[in-house]
């Protein structure tokens, strides 16, 4: 028993031995043990154990404080030396810091961008359990994905599958909202009340649970509230939608964050949408975004398997499969593959490259200059510094430098953030409080940069033998060709990366030019379009005739979709010689007279829709791809049908790009449906002199005929450009960062060249004295670098 009492707690003792390295540790441990025995003989076991622990804590605390004080002294010395070195070589330091901070600033900007991209839709509390319902349709010719589905699917999912806790539907809706004399086109939607349970869109006014007391309620965002009501209380006020119906404001929610794929400024109850929809019971009309909330820890694969066949009993004409897509993937991944995640990867790689180039700069300049610090290393070694001390010193120094650069780079970032924002079309901010991980990331970046760029000089310098250094046998010239070869390799790598980036950016901008100047198969210049609702559609003929009175207007037409993006596609087509079980999906646009003429689409065979043929309401015009798909030898005149509508093919148009240029041109059917046109397109003669005058004229005509709707016109080519705006942006960002990379590498090369020239001053002097001309000397100096850069070219 006595032996037991004599032993102090083992863990405490181990800690003591482990961490009190610098003093007489065993003597210390034994002393404590001796005292412990005295304590145990007087107090209880628990008390003495506590006492021992208390002693150990005190010892360790005071030891660490002591150690820290001495470390600080050394640290101060390192710090002074580092600062002195910076001051002594101002030019070098400037180049070094400028290069590194430019690289880091570029990196930070890109990281902010990447972080913003990755943050999409993650602000919802339930983000990880939320999914969007997607419909996959397998046709004979292709597989189609529908991110929107029919109205009954949402409730059916919720009712039939216990794993699905809740479902909410969202129907996008553009409407003209009017209050007093304020009226604007707004983007909004119809939603189920559960929408507010699934998604986190906090209410500022009103209540989440009673958001929609009746079908004529409307919830608006703060932005909308301010736009229409200023500082007045919007609750209970009336907004007129599309000049027809009054809705009462029942709630105000916070503005939708920019990193949400759902965008809206007002929300109305889905019940109301069911009232105005043409066929709310139909299972075949895909138009509703449907989201579901899964119960936590539900396996998504299992749910996908269960729900896959939900639509099969209702849609027999085509093979379908329902599945769930995670909410957080919607922004980054397209259903067909690819998506923004590609840009995230590309930009991350660019950021890494730019940073790497900056680091290589740093390494080169530091090692190049290391000869000037060799004496210091020798002194330190002689006075007892170990290799590890020197490694620490040099790495510490480069971390210090990288933090200085970090400081400058943050200044740079805050200066250029607005420019970058307009470039990238985002609203990025550096917000310390909410973006702790960004800050940590940036600091981590600085440390990482410091470590990487300091590692090479640190390891080389610290491994030198003091005897050699101090005897002077390690003169700069004899410092070893190995090192300068390494430096050259680094320069080559650096320039190879830059050149690869340049090539990439040239390719990217070529491609963008290609998109811009591609012959689309239709004429997008000088075409003005307006969106048209049913009220306007009823007056289409009078509008058209009035517009055509202007001699500068050549054609007016209407269509259900703009030719830049025809999104609607259907199945159920039939033609002569079709294999019975073949289910083919084709794009379809409903158009008015003179659609083909207005857009200058080439008619290969047959004719366009015309007033002279009253039966055109049942006839079809196909594009070349559609003809190819059907395999018809002489399409014009042959029988064709869509569902129960039978008619003949009256014309064939040449393929034109009615969807993104990234897609192959698909089969397209044009049908004549004047009552279903959502847009009116006006072609202005290309020789019209006074474009703005013509537009003003149009506006006057418009306001006479449909005064209740504003004349909000767009040019078709602008709309087209808007489709590729994100790509243009990416291309521009890419170019700028390539330029930065090149700039940084040139800076590094400049620094290196300047240093070498300085070192060879004497040599140059002697050469001059011996009669060398200036050009020869320049040649001599330039030669080496030209070789390096051209080598890099070859590699790239």
């Amino acid at each position, binding site marked *: 028993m006595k032996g037991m009492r004599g032993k102090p707690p083992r863990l405490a003792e181990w800690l003591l031995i482990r961490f*009190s390295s*610098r*003093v*007489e540790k*065993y*003597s*210390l441990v*034994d*002393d*404590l*043990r*001796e*005292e412990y025995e005295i304590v145990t003989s007087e107090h209880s076991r628990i008390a003495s154990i506590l006492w021992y622990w208390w*002693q150990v804590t*005190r*010892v*360790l*605390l*005071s*030891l660490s404080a*002591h150690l820290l004080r001495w470390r600080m002294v050394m640290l101060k010395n390192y710090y002074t030396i580092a600062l002195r070195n910076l001051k002594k070589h101002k030019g070098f330091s400037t180049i070094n810091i400028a290069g590194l901070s430019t690289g880091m600033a570029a990196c930070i900007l890109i990281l902010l961008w990447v972080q913003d991209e990755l943050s999409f839709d993650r602000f919802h509390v339930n983000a990880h359990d939320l999914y969007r319902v997607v419909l996959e349709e397998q046709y004979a010719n292709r597989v189609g994905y529908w991110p929107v589905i029919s109205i009954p699917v949402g409730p059916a999912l919720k009712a039939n599958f216990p794993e699905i806790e809740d479902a909410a539907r969202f129907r996008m809706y553009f409407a003209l909202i009017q209050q007093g004399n304020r009226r604007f086109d707004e983007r909004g939607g119809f939603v189920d009340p559960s929408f507010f349970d699934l998604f986190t869109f906090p209410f500022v006014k009103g209540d989440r649970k009673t958001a929609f007391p009746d079908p004529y309620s409307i919830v608006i965002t703060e932005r909308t509230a301010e736009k229409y009501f200023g500082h007045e209380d919007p609750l209970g006020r009336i907004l007129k939608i599309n000049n027809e119906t009054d809705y009462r404001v029942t709630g105000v929610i916070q503005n939708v964050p920019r990193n949400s794929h759902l965008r809206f400024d007002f929300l109305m109850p889905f019940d109301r949408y069911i009232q105005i929809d043409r066929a709310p019971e139909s299972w075949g009309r895909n138009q509703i975004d449907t989201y579901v909330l899964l119960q936590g820890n539900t396996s998504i694969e299992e749910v996908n398997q269960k729900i896959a066949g939900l639509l099969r009993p209702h849609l027999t004409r085509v093979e379908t499969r329902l599945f769930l897509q995670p909410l957080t993937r919607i922004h980054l991944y397209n259903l067909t593959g690819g998506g923004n995640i590609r840009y995230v990867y590309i930009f991350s790689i660019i950021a890494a490259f730019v940073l790497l180039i900056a680091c290589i700069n740093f390494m080169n300049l530091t090692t190049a200059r290391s000869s000037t610090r060799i004496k210091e290393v020798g002194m330190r070694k002689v006075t007892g510094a170990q290799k590890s001390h020197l490694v620490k010193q040099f790495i510490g120094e480069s971390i210090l430098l990288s933090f200085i650069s970090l400081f400058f780079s943050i200044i740079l970032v805050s200066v250029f953030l607005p420019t970058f924002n307009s470039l990238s079309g985002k609203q990025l901010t550096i917000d310390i409080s909410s973006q702790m991980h960004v800050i940590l990331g940036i600091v981590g970046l600085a440390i990482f940069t410091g470590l990487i760029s300091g590692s090479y000089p640190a390891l080389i310098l610290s491994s030198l033998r003091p005897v050699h250094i101090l005897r002077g046998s390690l003169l700069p010239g004899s410092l070893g060709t190995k090192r300068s070869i390494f430096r050259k390799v680094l320069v080559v790598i650096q320039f190879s990366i830059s050149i690869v980036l340049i090539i990439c950016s040239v390719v990217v901008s070529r491609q963008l030019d290609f998109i811009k100047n591609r012959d689309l198969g239709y004429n997008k210049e000088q075409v003005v379009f307006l969106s048209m609702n049913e009220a306007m559609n009823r007056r289409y003929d009078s509008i058209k005739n009035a517009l055509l009175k202007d001699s500068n207007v050549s054609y007016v037409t209407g269509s259900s979709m703009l030719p830049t993006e025809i999104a609607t596609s259907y199945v159920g087509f039939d033609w002569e010689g079709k294999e019975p079980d073949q289910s083919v999906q084709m794009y379809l646009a409903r158009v008015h007279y003179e659609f083909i003429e207005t857009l200058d689409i080439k008619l290969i065979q047959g004719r366009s829709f015309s007033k002279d043929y009253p039966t055109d309401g049942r006839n079809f015009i196909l594009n070349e791809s559609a003809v190819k798909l059907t395999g018809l030898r002489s399409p014009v005149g042959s029988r064709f049908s869509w569902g129960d509508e039978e008619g003949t093919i009256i014309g064939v148009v040449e393929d034109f790009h009615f969807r993104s240029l990234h897609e192959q041109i698909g089969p397209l059917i044009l049908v004549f449906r004047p009552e279903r046109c959502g847009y009116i397109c006006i072609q202005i003669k290309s020789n019209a002199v006074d474009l703005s005058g013509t537009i003003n004229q149009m506006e006057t005509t418009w306001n006479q005929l449909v005064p209740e709707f504003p004349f909000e016109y767009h040019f078709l080519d602008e709309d087209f450009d808007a489709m590729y705006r994100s790509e243009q942006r990416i291309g521009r960002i890419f170019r700028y960062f390539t330029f930065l990379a090149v700039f940084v590498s040139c800076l590094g090369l400049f620094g290196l060249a300047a240093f070498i020239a300085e070192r060879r001053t004497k040599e140059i002097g002697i050469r001059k004295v011996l009669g060398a001309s200036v050009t020869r000397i320049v040649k001599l100096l330039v030669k080496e670098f030209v070789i390096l850069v051209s080598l890099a070219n070859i590699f790239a």
Partner: protein
Amino acid sequence: MVDLTKNEEILLLSIWRLKEKAYGVQIKNFIKENTGKDWNYGTLYCTLDQLVRKAILFKREGKPMPERGGRRKIFYTISPDGIKALQAALELQKVLWDGITSLALGEGMQS
């Protein structure tokens, strides 16, 4: 000549008083009894190590002790340099306190 800090002075004087018995536990307890301050071993050994390094103290190893697992106790003695340093500290004290018989700080405050 090495200037001593107050802690070092206390430590040296304690060792001086303890003579041959001056090792860790004894020094610590002596300081506690005489000054009321409870030093921890961390502080104690750091200061001791420093003084040894400055050659103010000498280390001397005692006999192997069975209760210490066969390890020796380490005793400390003051070196001639240490004596000089202590004398200097005493001189300094004397000079500074010369003529002050009783400490009445309150008087100084009034003027």
